[in-house]
Structure formats: structure tokens, C-alpha cells
């Protein structure tokens, strides 16, 4: 009995041949139609799935830098997770239909190109809101709010923090349902993201992230709170111009937090902010349903541990007192 694994005597290039043919397979599987969007992490194309009755899909191309140990552990784990989550078919998570790769050898500098194939959804919430002819009806706001929080709750129940909730990453179907997109693999690129020149929107960032303190799933609740407010006004709630401006805007809205809530080990001092008093959110969100107002207030709380959880939100009277469409 041998005492070691039997491995091939093939030189390493063997997979390159395989990859080239796999590349052609992929190329035959999907026909690229047009560019949908380019973000900080990748490029999204509209494509036709040639094997499934020509159904239209959205292909997200992500580049992964290979390490000495091959495909990064985080990438492997996240692909596993995305595939595993997909089995639940949650109505508020965009369907991941397929994963394929664009080969290893063709990338010049130890890069791997992955294609994540998603169901194609009409538009994102950003364009939905900008195209809306006037204020959204209350029932629509309520059902969209519920969709968003349900998706967040689903991710949190699987111990996933989205970390980048914003209208661009929320897709709106033709039937008006909202689905979360762009989570999971994004994590891998966090470091890179900060280095890129692409301006990453700050407007949905909670104070703990802006301060560089520890964060947890409560971060998504803050971002979702900002999005929910935006559903009412169709305008971003806190459109900061810089990290520091963003913090000033936050404290001008919710008031400068008490010293007891200021996180430890952050370089920014509480005293560098004027002692802003809290504003009345109702003045910014006029005509808002009182339950909706109370919910959003509970989501925009400085101390992450005092913020509502996604599950708390789903049990809020805003959703429970009247049926959600």
C-alpha cells in the first residue's frame, strides 16, 4: 500500500489546455449582448443563455488574483456559500443560475476570471427611483421596504453581512419586487476596492464603518434604513461628500452620540464634532406613515447594539399591523 497520494506526472500546463477548451464551452453557452454596468468590483453584461431557450441573463465578471496557494480560500468559500444559499431560492435574493470561468492561463498575471450568471432583472432601485414620475404610493413603499429587510434578514440568518446595501445593489423586477444583489464575492475585493479610484458611495455607510470601529450585521440595517428613507423622498438621505462630511451629516440628523456610546480605539475624537442636537426625522420625511417613521428611526441608531435587527424590523408594527402586499 502506498503511503502518499498518487499525483500526476503531468507538467503544470495540463490544465491550461483544459481551460482553453472550457473557455470555448463557456463562450458557446452564453452570448454577450451588451454592457449593463461597471462597478468597483467587476463588470456586468447582459447575455443570452444559448442552452436554456435563449433566456436573458446578467453575467458578472469578476477577477480573482491567484495566490501561492491557488484560488484564494475566501473565493472558494464564498462560491461554496453562494451556491449553497441559492438552494433556498429566497424571493428577495437575485437568482444565481450558474458559475463559470474564463480560464486561468489566458490571464497574464496570475488572475482567474469568474463569471457569475444571474437572472436578469429589469432595473436597479436607483434607476427605478429616478424614473418614478412622482412619489411612490404608500403600499408600494411598504412592500419594497419589506422585501429589502426580508432579504437582509435571510443573509443575516446565514451569518452573511452584505456590507454594501444601496439602491445600485437592489434590483427591481417588472412586478415591482426588490431583490438583493452583489453580496458574497464582494468581500474578497474589499482591500482592492479601497485602492481603486472608483468612487464608492458613502451615503449608506453607518458611523461605525466611517469611524473605523468594529462592525457587524447591524451595518446592513443602517444602510437599509437609509434606503427605506429614500423610498419616501426618492432622494438620498445623507449624501455626504467625504468621510468627514458624511459623519457630520449623520450627527446633524441623529444628534452627536453621548460619550458613553463612542467606540473605543478609534482615531477620531468625539469632540471634533459640534454637539449637534438630534433633528426631527419627520421634518425630512413629511407625510410619512408614523409606523414607517418609527421603524426608520430604530434603524438609524448610532450604537450598533441598540439598533433594530433585521428580524426586529420584520416584526415592527409597520409590517404587522396591515398586511404587506
Amino acid at each position, binding site marked *: 500500500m502506498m503511503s*502518499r497520494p498518487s499525483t500526476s506526472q503531468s507538467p*503544470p500546463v495540463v490544465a491550461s489546455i483544459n481551460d482553453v477548451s472550457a473557455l470555448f464551452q463557456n463562450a458557446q453557452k452564453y452570448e454577450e449582448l451588451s454592457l449593463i454596468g461597471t462597478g468597483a468590483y467587476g463588470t456586468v453584461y447582459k447575455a443570452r443563455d444559448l442552452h436554456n431557450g435563449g433566456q436573458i441573463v446578467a453575467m458578472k465578471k469578476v477577477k480573482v488574483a491567484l495566490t501561492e496557494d491557488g484560488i484564494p480560500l475566501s473565493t472558494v468559500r464564498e462560491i461554496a456559500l453562494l451556491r449553497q444559499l441559492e438552494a433556498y431560492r429566497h424571493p428577495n435574493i437575485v437568482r444565481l443560475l450558474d458559475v463559470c470561468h474564463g480560464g486561468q492561463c489566458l490571464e497574464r498575471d496570475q488572475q482567474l476570471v469568474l463569471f457569475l450568471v444571474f437572472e436578469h432583472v429589469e432595473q436597479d432601485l436607483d434607476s427605478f427611483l429616478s424614473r418614478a414620475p412622482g412619489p411612490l404610493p404608500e403600499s408600494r413603499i411598504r412592500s419594497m421596504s419589506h422585501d429589502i429587510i426580508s432579504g437582509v434578514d435571510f443573509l443575516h440568518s446565514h451569518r452573511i453581512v452584505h456590507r454594501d446595501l444601496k439602491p445600485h445593489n437592489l434590483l427591481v423586477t417588472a412586478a415591482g419586487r426588490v431583490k438583493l444583489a452583489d453580496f458574497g464575492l464582494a468581500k474578497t475585493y474589499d482591500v482592492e476596492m479601497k485602492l481603486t479610484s472608483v468612487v464608492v458611495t458613502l451615503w449608506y455607510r453607518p458611523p461605525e464603518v466611517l469611524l473605523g470601529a468594529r462592525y457587524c450585521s447591524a451595518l446592513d440595517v443602517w444602510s437599509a434604513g437609509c434606503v427605506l428613507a429614500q423610498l419616501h423622498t426618492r432622494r438620498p438621505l445623507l449624501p455626504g461628500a467625504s468621510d468627514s462630511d458624511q459623519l457630520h451629516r449623520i450627527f446633524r440628523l441623529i444628534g452627536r452620540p453621548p460619550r458613553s456610546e463612542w467606540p473605543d480605539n478609534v482615531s477620531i475624537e468625539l469632540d471634533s464634532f459640534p454637539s449637534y442636537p438630534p433633528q426631527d426625522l419627520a421634518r425630512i420625511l413629511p407625510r410619512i406613515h408614523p409606523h414607517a417613521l418609527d421603524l426608520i428611526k430604530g434603524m438609524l441608531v448610532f450604537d450598533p447594539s441598540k439598533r433594530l435587527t433585521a428580524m426586529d424590523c420584520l416584526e415592527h408594527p409597520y409590517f404587522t399591523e396591515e398586511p404587506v402586499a
Partner: protein
Amino acid sequence: MFSTSSQRKFWTFSDENELARLREKHNYFFYARQNSHIDEQQRFTYFLSPDEERQLLKQYELHLKEFCKRFTPPMPKGVVGTAFHYFKRFYLYNSTMDYHPKEILATCVYLACKVEEFNVSIGQFVANIKGDREKASDIILNNELLLMQQLNYHLTIHNPFRPVEGFLIDIKTRCSLANPERLRSGIDEFLEKVFLTDACLLYAPSQIALAAVLHAASKEQENLDSYVTDILFRDAGRDKLAILIEAVRKIRSLVKMVEAPARERVRLIEKKLDKCRNQENNPDSEIYKRRMRELLDEDDVLHVGSSRMSLDTSGVTQVLSPSAS
């Protein structure tokens, strides 16, 4: 959760015939793709038959088990189980004549380490391999993507180990069996063998776990039948219980039939394989070398000088070939 998993949906098959059909199909596809002058009647004088492929893979499953057992640092059971799943899944859709099991085995274990978060670097990993370690690591890293793709990126595996723990806790609380911990050695022994069968492609992890527990109990001259029917599945209903009992019976009989393939037979199969394997994937073949040269010529940016792209395989065959040890 297994019930909503890709494992259940895509990788749990109805019966052994279905597995046999898939394997025969890919055995035939290989032959058909070769355009060889050998006619169908004479096919198996040159190419491997489905049964020969089975025997060969059984031998390599034993190698896989041994490799994991001797691995340092000691490998958690979950990694071993996951690696077995990968190996079996890979060869449901591929022929050993296309991809030699020596090329796939170590890659399965390596990928399983990543997915199960058993953190070993490639250096640590190949330290467990005798022979040319640099070569081995190139092979593993270059096959990693191929493997992930062939697994259709379904990387999360539900193993029977956790359900076993669940059963043991339940037995301790709801069953009168004295000292349930004594079942452990019988359970471990059963689960080691179960991975040498097709059970994990046919049954749910909890069914396999239950079979292991019941096997261990009967080895201890204990009978847990009334615990299973009256307590564990009291509310399951007759039909469900009958299905479960049948599954357990089948799993136990699969395990009973496990035996190592005859050494001499495997040796002949390996010899046959050396001749009939896909020469395009065989680094010692002329066609492989020619294709490689073409590829390198076309792709002027490839770093021909780097060790990862080395074409020099002289002397490696002996070191890495399992039949040489």
C-alpha cells in the same frame, strides 16, 4: 440544511442503476470521441471497460483514505468526507481515461481542505507527498479550477458526522442505552467504510449516520430498534419509516460488500490505461508536447521560463507513479 441543499437536488441519485448509466455513458463518450479505428466489438481490448474503471477507482479511493489518514497535521473527518464526495462526483461525469485518478485525487483533498476551513498552505500540503513536491503542487494548483468546474461549483458538502453527533446526544437523553459513547468506535469504523461505497451518492447524510449508529449498536449486542421506531421517528408515519428502514438496510449491505480490488487486476488496468488514456492530457505523449509548443508559441506573454510552465518532465514519472512504490 441537507433538505434544501444542492447535494440533495443535484448530487443524490435515485438508485445504483442511475450511477452505472452515468459512468457507462462517460466511458462510452470517451471511446466515441477518440475516432479510433478500433470497432465497437473490439473496444475493450484496448479501452477500459466500465467495470475496469470501477475497479481502478476503488483502488484510488483506498489511496485517498490512506493519504488522509497519514496526513500531518491530522485531518478532520469533515475534510476526508468532503474529499470523497468530490472524487466520486468527478468520476460520475468524467472517465479515468480522460483524467487519470492520480491527477484528481490530491486535488480533491486540497480543495476539501479549503472548503472545510482546514488551513494548510500548498507547501504544508505537498509535504505529505513523497516525490517531486514542486511538481505535485503545480499539478494540484492547475487542476483546482477544473475540479471546481466539474463539481459545478457545488462545493458545500453535507457529511454524516454531524447527524451522528445529533443521534448520540439524543440517545443519551431519550434512550435507556447504557454508555452510548462506546458506540463511537463502531460508528467510526462504519463511516470509514461507507465512503468506499456509493452510499453518499444515494442516501441522505442522516440516513448514513443512522445506519452507522445501528451498526455500532448491533456490534455491541444492543438493539436500538424500538428507540428508532417508538421515540426517534414516532411521528414520522409508517411510509416514511419504511423508507428509512429500507435505506438503512441498503447502506449496511453496501458497507458489508466493500472489498479491496485484486492487486494484480488493478496492475493490469493501470498498464492498459497508460496506453489508452487521452494522450492530449498525458504529458509524456508526443501530441501533448506538440500542442503545448503550439500553445506557447501562440501565447507570447506566457512565461516559458518559470517553473510553473516547465515542460521538462524527465524523471518525474518514476517518482510520482503509484505503481512504482
